[in-house]
C-alpha cells in the first residue's frame, strides 16, 4: 500500500552512471523512480505509468529531449524538470518556453536536485487547486501580496511599487517556484515583446530588488538566472 503513496518520477537520461546516481538519490528520499534511456521508451512509460514528475535530459540518443517535451505538453500538465549544461542558456530558454517547469544545471548536487523536485511538486499541486481566488493572498517568507488591493508587504511593511513592478511581482508569484523566461514575463506584463524589452524587464527587476531591500547575490525572494529568466522562490 505504501508504495502507491510515493510520488512517481520518470527519469529520462541516457548516461548510465548519471541515471543510476540520480535514481539512488531519489529512491533514498522516498520517491519511486521509473527509468527511461531513450525518447521512445520515455513516451511509452509516460503513458503507462502517469508519473507525477519528469526529469528530462535534453541530449538523448534517439530524439532530442525537446521533442519529448513538446509531445508531453500537447495533452498533459505533468511537471517537467530539465537537466542541462550551463553554457547552453539558449537550450534552457527553449525548454522553458516549450513548457518545462524548471531546470537543473549539470553538474548538480543531491541537495539542489531534491530541492527543485520538492518545490516543483508542491507548486504544481498548489496551483492546481488554488487558481486565483478573489481576496487571494500570497505569502512566502516575509513577503505578502494582496492581489485585490494590489499591495505588497515585507515583514508587514508596505513596499511602494510602480504599476509595472507590481505586475511583474504578481506574475512571478502566481507561477511561484517556476522559472519564467524573459519572454514569458514580458508577454505576461507588457503583452508584446519589442526591442529592448529584456532591458526594460531587467531595469524593473533591479528596482524591485532595491525596494525589497535585497542585496545583490542574496536571492531572498526572487532568483535571477542571467540570460534565462526569474523565479519566485517558494521557500
Amino acid at each position, binding site marked *: 500500500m505504501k508504495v502507491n503513496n510515493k510520488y512517481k518520477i520518470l527519469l529520462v537520461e541516457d548516461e548510465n552512471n548519471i541515471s543510476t546516481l540520480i535514481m539512488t538519490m531519489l529512491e533514498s528520499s522516498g520517491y519511486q523512480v521509473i527509468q527511461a534511456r531513450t525518447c521512445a521508451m520515455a513516451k511509452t512509460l509516460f503513458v503507462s505509468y502517469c508519473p507525477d514528475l519528469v526529469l528530462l535530459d535534453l541530449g538523448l540518443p534517439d530524439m532530442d529531449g525537446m521533442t519529448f517535451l513538446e509531445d508531453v505538453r500537447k495533452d498533459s500538465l505533468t511537471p517537467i524538470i530539465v537537466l542541462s549544461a550551463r553554457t547552453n542558456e539558449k537550450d534552457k530558454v527553449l525548454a522553458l518556453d516549450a513548457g518545462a517547469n524548471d531546470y537543473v544545471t549539470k553538474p548538480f548536487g543531491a541537495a539542489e536536485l531534491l530541492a527543485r523536485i520538492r518545490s516543483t511538486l508542491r507548486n504544481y499541486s498548489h496551483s492546481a487547486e488554488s487558481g486565483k481566488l478573489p481576496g487571494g493572498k500570497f505569502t512566502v517568507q516575509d513577503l505578502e501580496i494582496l492581489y485585490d488591493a494590489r499591495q505588497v508587504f515585507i515583514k508587514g511593511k508596505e513596499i511602494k511599487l510602480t504599476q509595472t513592478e507590481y505586475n511583474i511581482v504578481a506574475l512571478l508569484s502566481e507561477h511561484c517556484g517556476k522559472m519564467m523566461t524573459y519572454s514569458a514575463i514580458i508577454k505576461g506584463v507588457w503583452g508584446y515583446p519589442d526591442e529592448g524589452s529584456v*532591458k526594460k524587464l531587467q*531595469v524593473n527587476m*533591479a528596482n524591485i530588488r532595491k525596494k525589497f531591500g535585497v542585496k*545583490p*547575490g542574496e536571492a531572498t525572494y526572487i532568483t535571477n538566472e*542571467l*540570460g534565462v529568466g526569474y523565479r519566485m522562490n517558494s521557500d
Partner: protein
Amino acid sequence: MKKKRHDIWKNISVMAVVFLVASGSSIILQKTGVHEHITAIFIFAVFLTSILTDGYIYGIISALVGTLAVNYAYTYPFYALDFKFQSNLISAVVMMSIAVLTGMLTTQVKAHEAIKAESEKERMRANLLRAVSHDIRTPLTTIYGASTTLLESGDNYTEEQKKKILKGIQEDSDWLMRMVENLLSITRIDEGRIKIIKTPTVLDELIDSVMLKFHKRYPQQEVSLELPENIVVIPMDAILIEQVIFNLLENAVLHAEGMTKLVLKVFVLGKQVVFEVSDNGCGIEKERLSGIFNGSYHLFEGRTPSSDSKKHNSGIGLSVCQTIVKAHGGAITAENNPAGGAVFRFSLNVEEMNESE
C-alpha cells in the same frame, strides 16, 4: 566587400599624397636651380609608395607616372617627352625595377607576418592544451584513487576517514567543474570567431547573478560591493562576463594570502564601465605581474607545488578573463595597490540609456 573598397581608396590616397609631395619638392628644387636630384626624389617617392601600399600595382603606377613626370617636366628637354635621351631611359628603368622589387619584398614580409601570427596562436593553443591536460590529471588521480579505495576496502576505514576521502573527491571534482567551465567559455568565443553576441545587460542583474554563484561556492567569503546608484546598461555576453568577475573574485580567494577584505567596485568613467576587484592580501610578485594574463601558465606551474590543487586554477582563470574581455573590445589590467594587495580592473563600453521608461 566594403573593406576591400576602403583599402583601394586608402592605397590610392597614399599614392597621391606621396606623389604630390614629390612634385612639390621637385618644383621647389627646380626653382632654386638644383635639378640634378629631382630624379632621386621621384625614385624615393616610388620606393615609399611601394612600401606603404598593398601589392605591386600602386608602386608600378607611381613608377610610370613618376617616369613621365620626370621626363616631361623636370629634365632636359623641359616640358616635352623624350626617350631618346639616354639618362631619361635609365631613370625610367631604375624606377620600374625599384617599384617591382619593393612591392615583391613588402608583400612577402606581410605574408610572412601573417603566418607568424597564426603559428604563434597555434603554439599558445597547444601550450594551453598541454598544461590543461597535465593539470586535469592531478584531480582525476585523487578521484579515481579515492573511489577505488572506498569501493575495494571501504570497510577498513572509520566513518571519519571515509568522510575525509569523500571530501577529497568532492573538492577535486569541484575543481574540474570550474576548469571545464573556463574551457567552455573559451570555446564559446572560438566558435563565433567573427564576434561574440552582445545583449544589453543591466549591471545590477549581472552583479546579482555573479554574487549568487560566488556565495554558493564560497559561502564564508564576504564581498563588499560598491555599485553606481543609477541603472547602467552594458552590451555583453553576460555568461562570459559573469565568468570573468567570478574568476577575478576566486583568484583573490585562492591567492591573496592574508586577505581580510575583498571589494568589487563598479564605476562609470565617460563611456566606459570599469569593474575593479581589489583585495588587501599579499599582492602579486613583480616578475609575475607582467605576464599574469597570458603565457604565465607555465610560470605558475613551475612555482607552485602541483600537489596543492587549490593553486591550479589561477593560470587558466586569468587568461580566460583576458580572452573574454578582449573579445568584448575591452581591456584588463593587474597591479599592486600601494597600500597593499592586488587590484584587477577591466573595462567595457556602456550603452547610452534612452529615457523611454
